[in-house]
Structure formats: structure tokens, C-alpha cells
């Protein structure tokens, strides 16, 4: 069964979703939860079966689909994708479990299960076309989620989300076709398999163009400045569960794709574009943090903060060294957990008051102390308090990039200041002060169902903040392999210099470890 566990992980939710049509409406939530729990258990099994010492792909599956055009169904995970897959299944699980009563819940749960399929598919795919299939397919359930259960501007938001990402990914598709064509020219065989592409060393001029094509697709998904404007609408209008999954998993597709495609395929271009991208990342960090500060709606604050954090992830990715990339992958998970939790928390008060305007609240710490505590914890995680999950990622990302540029890291580091500014201000507006609004006087504190989602997240937040090793180790192994690959493939001397030779470092590393 382990031979096909990835396929099972991908298609089990979809199959369960189809079966879900037969379930009675009242039992739907239980069914959805059960499926998600099974799926999560499977993903945990994947983790247990995962060999931490292997840096390459594991659980590979290979089924010929269109061999004459080089499209094959290839799956596999390594340390980079493993935890994002687990996170996807985890968030679907707690998302469904904590779903507040809503209309047409059956449709919603089926949609979520399909969404889960696409999410896991993206991270498990090792064939560019299969990757693209899931990548695009993930738009549809999300479109429906936002459009059907969202706020007043939901249709605008969902269509904007869809078209924006769709446009970007079509350009990426052209890039993929080019890549396959280059592979064909070099080898005489069509192939879309990523591992095959890794073997291809492209001249720098080609790399630059292809990098740009892929970049547009990924950048819109991430979303990077100035392609980010769909995100506040999507988040602002989406139902809680939609925002949670969007922030926790869907945005990670972009950053994951950078590491899976852009870096190893185009090492020279990565070095060439490193500084422009770093500058964009810094703009994302500071500019969106400022915008977050100006928001009146809590959810928008969290939404913009997402963009800001994604900036740090991008920065870490383009550090092009093991520390930075590992950090950015870890931060993907961390940001997933934290912003997912924050969106869930926003959902809690939205369910009670049906408004997200901060001016409507104030003094909630009196009325909902437990809620305030959890919110406070997540807030601190969000601003990167050490011993919370976010810090590890942010620290490593910034640390990594520091090797490339001191000044830019200093600028990016402003993240920890501006992040604190908008988060604390928002927290103050919502929780501190006297209860001024009559409607808030008797708000019930978090319910058991909500705690069901929030407690595990809180535990993870702290646990991985204190002990990130179980996750960091496998990530590290795979990232080292990627960085080594990049180093070996790099053609320009500049790139050779910028991308460290990992195998040269291994000796010193073991030495350091022994020293302790």
C-alpha cells in the first residue's frame, strides 16, 4: 500500500467527495470530519514511513499517461513537500471539524474534499503537467467556496481570484511547454518529468526567459507585489474555512513551486533575479504591513499580514543557501499554521457578530478571555516571537538572506517591527479598553467545537517553535540536495559564487555538531 500511498492520499478525498453526494445532509459534517481524519491519519503514516535520511524523492509512482508527448503520472515526496502535504490534510481536517453551521453544508464539505485532492496533488506531483493539472484544478473549488459562501462582494472577489491566477498560470504553462521543448531538443524525447528537467543545463539567456514565464505564474499565486491585490478581496470575502485554507495551503503552492521549479531549473536566472526579487519581497514586507496597519477590517489585517509574511518566505527562498531555503520552507508551514489559526479566530467573532470591523469591537478581553488568550498567542506567533513556530522560519530565512545582502536583510528585518505595529494595534482595538458596544457585552467565549480546531493549532505553534527538529531535519536533507544541484548546474561564475557548494560544507557541519 505504501507504494501507492500518494495516489491514495490524493484521490481518497475526491472519491469520498463523490460518495458524499449520497450522504444525508444532517450527517454530512460527521462524514466530512471522518474522511478528513482518515486522510490526516494517512498523511501521518506517510510521515512515519518517510525516511528522514534520504534527500531524494520517496514513494515514487510512475504511470504512463501520454508517453508520446512525455506526460506521465509521476508522484513523489521529499522533505520539501512532505510537511506541506501533512499541513494540507491537517487544515482540511480541522477546517471541517470546526465548520460553523452554514447553508448548504453538504456542498461545502464536498467542495472542501475536492480542494484537498487538488492541494495534495500539487505538492505530490513530479510531472509538470500533472502539477499544472492540480494547480489549476485547485482554483475551482476555491472559486465556489468564495463565490457561494462569501461576503457581499463575493462574486467579484472569486472571479478576480480565479482569473488572476488563471492568467498567470497560463503564462507559466507556455514556459513549461518551452521547457519540455528544450528537453526534447537536447535529448530527442518529450518529457515533462521534473526530475528529468533537473538534469538539463540551459544557457543563461533561455533561463532568464523561462524564469520570467514561471515567475508570473508563481508570483500571482504567492502573491507577490504588485500582483497581490486579489488576495485581500479573496480573504475579505471568503468564508472562514476558505480563508484558512487559502492562507494555509494555497498560497504555499507559489512559494513551493519556486523551490521545486525555479531554483533548480534555472540557477543562473535565480541568481540574476535574486536582487530584483528580494526588492519586491521587501516591498511586500513593508508596504503591505503598512497597508495592514491602515485597515479597518480585522480579516483584511490578517490578509495583508499574510502577504507581508509571504515576502519573508520569498526572501528566504532566494537566499539560495541551505539556511534560507530551509527557513522559508519551515516558514511556509509556520505561516500556514499561524495565519490559518488567525483566520479561524477571526471567524469566531464573525460568527457571533457578523461583522469584522474593528471599530465594532473593543474590550473583548473582558468578555472572551479564552479567546483573547489564544488570539494573543497567535498574534505573538505572527509577530515572530521566539519559541513560536514563526520565529524559526523567519529567523532562518533572514539569516539565510543575510549572506547575500546585508542592507536588504536589514530592510527586510523591519518586518519584525512593522509586523508588531499593525498586529498590536489591531489587538488593542479589539481586545483592550472597556466594552463599549452593547452587542459585545454578552458574547459567548469560544465553544468546544472551536477549541477543537484552535487548541491543536496552539499546541503546534508552541511545540514546533521549541522543537522544530522533526520537521527541519528532513527539510534540511532535501534542501541540501537542491542547493547542491543548483551549484553544480550553475554556469555563470556569479551564480557559482552565490550558491554555496553544500558538499564542501558538510564536513564543517559534522565537525560543528561533534564539537557540541
Amino acid at each position: 500500500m505504501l507504494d501507492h500511498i500518494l495516489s491514495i492520499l490524493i484521490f481518497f478525498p475526491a472519491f469520498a467527495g463523490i460518495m458524499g453526494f449520497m450522504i444525508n445532509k444532517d450527517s454530512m459534517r460527521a462524514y466530512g470530519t471522518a474522511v478528513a481524519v482518515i486522510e490526516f491519519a494517512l498523511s501521518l503514516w506517510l510521515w512515519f514511513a518517510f525516511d528522514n535520511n534520504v534527500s531524494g524523492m520517496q514513494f515514487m509512482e510512475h504511470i504512463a499517461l501520454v508517453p508520446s508527448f512525455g506526460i506521465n503520472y509521476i508522484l513523489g515526496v521529499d522533505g520539501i513537500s512532505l510537511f506541506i502535504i501533512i499541513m494540507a490534510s491537517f487544515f482540511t481536517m480541522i477546517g471541517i471539524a470546526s465548520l460553523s453551521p452554514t447553508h448548504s453544508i453538504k456542498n461545502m464539505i464536498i467542495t472542501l474534499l475536492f480542494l484537498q485532492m487538488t492541494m495534495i496533488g500539487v505538492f505530490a506531483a513530479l510531472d509538470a503537467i500533472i502539477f499544472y493539472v492540480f494547480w489549476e484544478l485547485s482554483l475551482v473549488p476555491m472559486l465556489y467556496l468564495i463565490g457561494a459562501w462569501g461576503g457581499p462582494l463575493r462574486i467579484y472577489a472569486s472571479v478576480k481570484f480565479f482569473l488572476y491566477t488563471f492568467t498567470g498560470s497560463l503564462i507559466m504553462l507556455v514556459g513549461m511547454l518551452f521547457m519540455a521543448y528544450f528537453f526534447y531538443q537536447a535529448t530527442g524525447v518529450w518529457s515533462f518529468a521534473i526530475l528529468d528537467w533537473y538534469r538539463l543545463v540551459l544557457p543563461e539567456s533561455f533561463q532568464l526567459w523561462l524564469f520570467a514565464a514561471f515567475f508570473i505564474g508563481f508570483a500571482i499565486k504567492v502573491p507577490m507585489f504588485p500582483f497581490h491585490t486579489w488576495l485581500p478581496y479573496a480573504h475579505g470575502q471568503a468564508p472562514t474555512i476558505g480563508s484558512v485554507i487559502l492562507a494555509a495551503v494555497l498560497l504555499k503552492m507559489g512559494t513551493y513551486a519556486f523551490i521545486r521549479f525555479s531554483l533548480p531549473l534555472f540557477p543562473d536566472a535565480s541568481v540574476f533575479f535574486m536582487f530584483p526579487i528580494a526588492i519586491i519581497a521587501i516591498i511586500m514586507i513593508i508596504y503591505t504591513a503598512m497597508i495592514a496597519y491602515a485597515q479597518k477590517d480585522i480579516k483584511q489585517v490578517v490578509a495583508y499580514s499574510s502577504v507581508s509574511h509571504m515576502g519573508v518566505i520569498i526572501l528566504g527562498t532566494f537566499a539560495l543557501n541551505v539556511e534560507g531555503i530551509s527557513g522559508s520552507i519551515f516558514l511556509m508551514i509556520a505561516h500556514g499554521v499561524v495565519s490559518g489559526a488567525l483566520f479561524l479566530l477571526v471567524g469566531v467573532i464573525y460568527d457571533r457578530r457578523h461583522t469584522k470591523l474593528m471599530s465594532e469591537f473593543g474590550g473583548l478581553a473582558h468578555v472572551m478571555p479564552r479567546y483573547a488568550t489564544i488570539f494573543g498567542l497567535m498574534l505573538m506567533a505572527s509577530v515572530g516571537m521566539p519559541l513560536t513556530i514563526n520565529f524559526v522560519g523567519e529567523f532562518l530565512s533572514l539569516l539565510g538572506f543575510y549572506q547575500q545582502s546585508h542592507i536588504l536583510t536589514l530592510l527586510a528585518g523591519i518586518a519584525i517591527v512593522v509586523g508588531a505595529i499593525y498586529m498590536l494595534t489591531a489587538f488593542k482595538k479589539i481586545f483592550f479598553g472597556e466594552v463599549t458596544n452593547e452587542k459585545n457585552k454578552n458574547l459567548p467565549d469560544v465553544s468546544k467545537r472551536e477549541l477543537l480546531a484552535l487548541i491543536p493549532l496552539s499546541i503546534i505553534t508552541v511545540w514546533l517553535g521549541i522543537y522544530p527538529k522533526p520537521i527541519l531535519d528532513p527539510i534540511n536533507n532535501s534542501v541540501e540536495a537542491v542547493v547542491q544541484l543548483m551549484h553544480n548546474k550553475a554556469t555563470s561564475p556569479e551564480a557559482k559564487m552565490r550558491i554555496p557548494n553544500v558538499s564542501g560544507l558538510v564536513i564543517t557541519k559534522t565537525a560543528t555538531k561533534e564539537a557540541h
Partner: protein
Amino acid sequence: MEIYLYIALFAPLVSSLFAALFTATPKKQFVGIIASLLIFTAFVSSSILLTHILGTGEIVHVELMTWMATGNLYIPFGFVVDQVSVTMMMVVTLVSTIVHIYSIGYMDHDSGFNRFFSYLSAFVFSMMILVMSDNFAGLFIGWEGVGLCSWLLIGFWFHKESATWAANEAFIMNRIADLGMLIGIFLIYWNTGTLQYDGAFAAFGNLDQTTLTLIGIFLFIGAMGKSAQFPLHTWLADAMEGPTPVSALIHAATMVTAGVYLVVRSHELYALIPNVGLFIASLGAFVAIFAASMALVNRDIKRVIAYSTLSQLGYMFAAAGLGAYWVALFHLMAHAFFKALLFLGGGNVMHAMNNELDPFKMGALGKTMKGTMIMMTLASVALAGIFPLAGFFSKDLILEVAFVDHHFIIYTVLLLTAGLTAFYSFRIIALIFHGEDRHTALGHHPHEAYKFMLVAMSPLLILAIIAGFTMKMPYFEMVTELLPATEYHIHSHTTYWIMTIGTQLFVMLAIFFAYKKYMCSSVKIPDGTSKMENNFFYKLLINQYYIPYFYEAYIVKIYKALSVVCWEQIDKKIVDASVDGIANIFYNTGKNTRQMQSGNLSTMLKWMVAGTVALLSLAVVFGLAAKYSDEITIVLSSLGV
């Protein structure tokens, strides 16, 4: 010994978590008691470690587990108890034990009693991590942890706007400094390959001066934030919005001294870059007099004490900057005792006066609050540096250091500050405890604090009195195992005596002046009419040199406005609008050109013919061009194309 290390470290955590269990329930007396006991346990463990170190001189170093390890980076949870950290551990655990006990009484009527203990113990835990860590990353954990707890505790009364504002201000300002520290850490990592103190310090010898200077500066920026040095000092005065025990523990005795601790801890670095050291010392001296000047006129007891803390931190930095690390540490310790005492006493007064903080509205409290009066007076004496109390030994030592090192400007400034210190300390003592009774008229009926609170404060009192002459030499012996053992003696005895006695006289004169001015019956509650209040310097001082206003007007407001502009103007009107604009171009083009499809067959036929005609004309042009290509070339070339 490791077990004691763990006890000292984790007892506060247990305490915090234990108290946290009861945060949602109403006040439980035993929560406070058990928390205090646990902290006391930590104190005892620290003491055992101290004796161990004193006895054997052996450093206790443990590694609990790996924290972060990736690529070349390896950061463990490692803890070290050596002569420096054990000093801090003692100070921290002792003061916090006392503050915990004191708080049982002070927070008696507060609904957030249990929560308070949870926060307070959490703070102690963070502080312990800070001082015990064996690497910069661990230090940073504690660094941020104390910041967090400080935020929680300043904003403890979160219904108060000013409290939450102050909490946020403190946190954000600290964050700015922390960024500097973070950069310092990055620099250390990329230059030495490790963040362990021993490894990094060992590698510093091989680095060039520029890098070292950068590291030193960035680490010191971190220290500036935590220790509220200029220009990041405004948060400390505002932090007085928190409960008084918090001020005593965090904003006087422990957290704010973390900056000094960092500099002392990194003495091997700063020893290599004396220029930075001199800068630190100069800044310290400046802050000393700068803060003292603001304390002169302030009308809030706690703020006065806060400024005095700031001023004393300036002293410590002056010492540390001049390379007298052990002196700085010694003053840190002594200062912790009497300053905590002063704050706790202030807390008693506040309690008695129903949270009234203006000393002009008090007067003659000495009658009802004898114990408090004695304690605060003695603490002030210690602060002023009168022989033989603790302050004399530690503070005068700093003056000597400056003198010996021939930094006479610094010396002069610090000397002046000593006078100012004495003046403002006794100004509030006089206003609170002596002179006319001004409070009854305002409806206050003060009473002395609980007995056990006073008892709890007594160890501090004792230490404030004796710490100087009993501990100076033993401490020197101990700590110089690690720190440079420079003894600062003025070689000429005459000069020494002139200086010492002169200083004492100067200080006493200041005390006398303060009593004279503020004990007389003419002291009134200022109403903004007196001549002095309209003086330029008075205004400058009472408004804290207008620095908070400057920050508000030129940083906060601008940031706010800029944020709104970014959102409303740039993000919505440029970035987003251009995306929508592109979409709209397509849509509107469709809308405007759909008329082409008029539904009239005749038009359709015309379109079809028109299309063909267009293609035909193209064809003809091309055909002719192809046919006469030679001629065209000739014509074009004759035209010079």
C-alpha cells in the same frame, strides 16, 4: 549541579503554568503563595549554584536539546552558569521572590490576581533564559520573552487606554532595537559560523576591525532598546502604567539591565573595539544626566523613579563602555536592590493614596506610613550614594573608573548627575512623607501596607544597606575569574580622599537643598501659574524635551498617514485599479464594438466584402512590391534609406 540549574530555570515556568491554570477563575490566594514558593525555590537553587561556583570556580554548562539545526547552523538549548550569569540569576530570583510575595498583598483586590502571577512568573522564566543561555540565539529568546511579558504586564490593566498604549509602545520600541540585535546575530553567524558564546568569542580574534565594530554596534542597538537608552528611552517612563510590582521587577531591577548584561557578556567583543566602548560610555553618561534632568521636575512618583533608573542605567553603560565590566555588573546588582525597594515603597504609597501619583498631592505621609518612609528614605540614600550604603560603593566606583581612565568629561557629567540624583530622590521623599498634609483635603485616607509586604521588602532594605561594604571585594574576586580584573584605584591618596569626600559633600548638599525647598509649608499643588512653571527649562523638562511629541508628530502620525496613503491611494487606486483597468479595457472594448453585430444582413454582407477588399488591397500592395522589388530598392536607396 545540573539539577539545580534546571530547577532554577524551570521553577518559574512551572509557577507560570500553574498560575495560568487559574486565570479564568476568581482570585485564589494560594496561587500567589505557590507561585512565590516556586520562585523562591529558584532562588534557593541559584544560591546553591552560587555557592558551588564560589566554592569550586567550576562553570556549569549543559545542553538540553537541539533547537534549530539546518545547513551549517546549529543552535541548541544550552545553558551556562558562570560567574556573570549567576550574579544575574541571584538578582533576578531574589528580587522576583520578593516582588512575588509583595504582590500577594499589592494585588489583593485585583480581579486579575491569578493572571498577574502567571505573567510575572513567565517573566522570571524568560529572564532566566536570557541570562543563562550559552548562545546568542538563546539570549534572543529570553530577550524577546521578557519583551512579551513586559507587554503583558504593562498592559495588565487592559481596560486602561494609556496602559495598553504604553504596552504597545514598549513592545514596538523594543522591537526596533531587537532588529539591530538580530542583525548582530546574523553578522556573528556568517563571520564565525556559530552562535555559541565560546565559539564566537574565540573566533572574534580573527575578524577584521570593521566587522567587529559592526557586530558591536548592532548588538549594542539591541541593548539600547531593552535598557531604554536614548533615543529609545520614552517607553520606560510610559511603562509605569503597569502595576507597581512590575515596575519594580522589570523596569528597575531586571529586564532593563539586560542591555548591560549583554554588553558585559560580550566583553570579549567590546574589548576588541574600544571605540565602540567609548561611544557606549559617552551615551551612558549622556543618558545619565539627561534622564536625571527630567526626573527633577516630574510630578509622578513612579516616573521619577523610572527616570532615575534610566539615569542609573546610564552609569552602568558608562562603566561597561569603559571596560569596567565588573563594576557595571556590581552597580547593576546594587541598583537592583535599592531601586526595587524604592519602587515597592512607591507602590505602598500609591496603594495608600488610591493610585494617586502626584507627590504634590501627598505630604506628611510619614506619620501614617512610618515603615514605608524609612525604607524609601534609606533606598534613596543608597541611590544617592551616601556612605556606607550600597550606592556609594558601586556608583562612586564608576566615577573613579571614569577618572582613572582620564575620561574627565564623562566623569564630570556623572558627578553632576550624582548631585541631581540626590536632589530629585529627596525631592519626592520630602514631598511625600514630610511637610504639610495636602492629601486629606483631597479626600485620601492613607494607611500603611500589609505587614507581610513590609517584611517581604526588608531583605532588599538590608541588601541596600550592606551590599556595598560586605560584598564588593568577594564579588570582585568571584566575577573577575571571567571578566577582566582591572582594579580602579586612584593612585594618589589625596586625590582619592578629596574626590570621595567632595562627592559626598556635593550629594549631601543636594539632599539638603531638596529638603529645604520641598519641606516648607509653602509647597502648593502646582496649578501652572507659578513663575517656575512658566520657565523655559521647566517646560522643556516636564515635557521630556518634547521628544515624545516629536515621535508622535513626526513618526507615528506620518507612519499612520503613509499607511493610509499606501492603502487608499497606491494599493487601491494604482495597483488594484490597473488590474481592474486591464480587465475593463477588454470588457468595454467588447461593449463598444458589439454594435458591429447589428443583426442586419446587409451590414454583415458589407463586412464580408470589406474584409475581402482589405485583404485584396494588402495582396495587391504586396504583389506589386514583389513585382517591382528591384525598382523599389533603387528608389529607396536613392532616397538614402
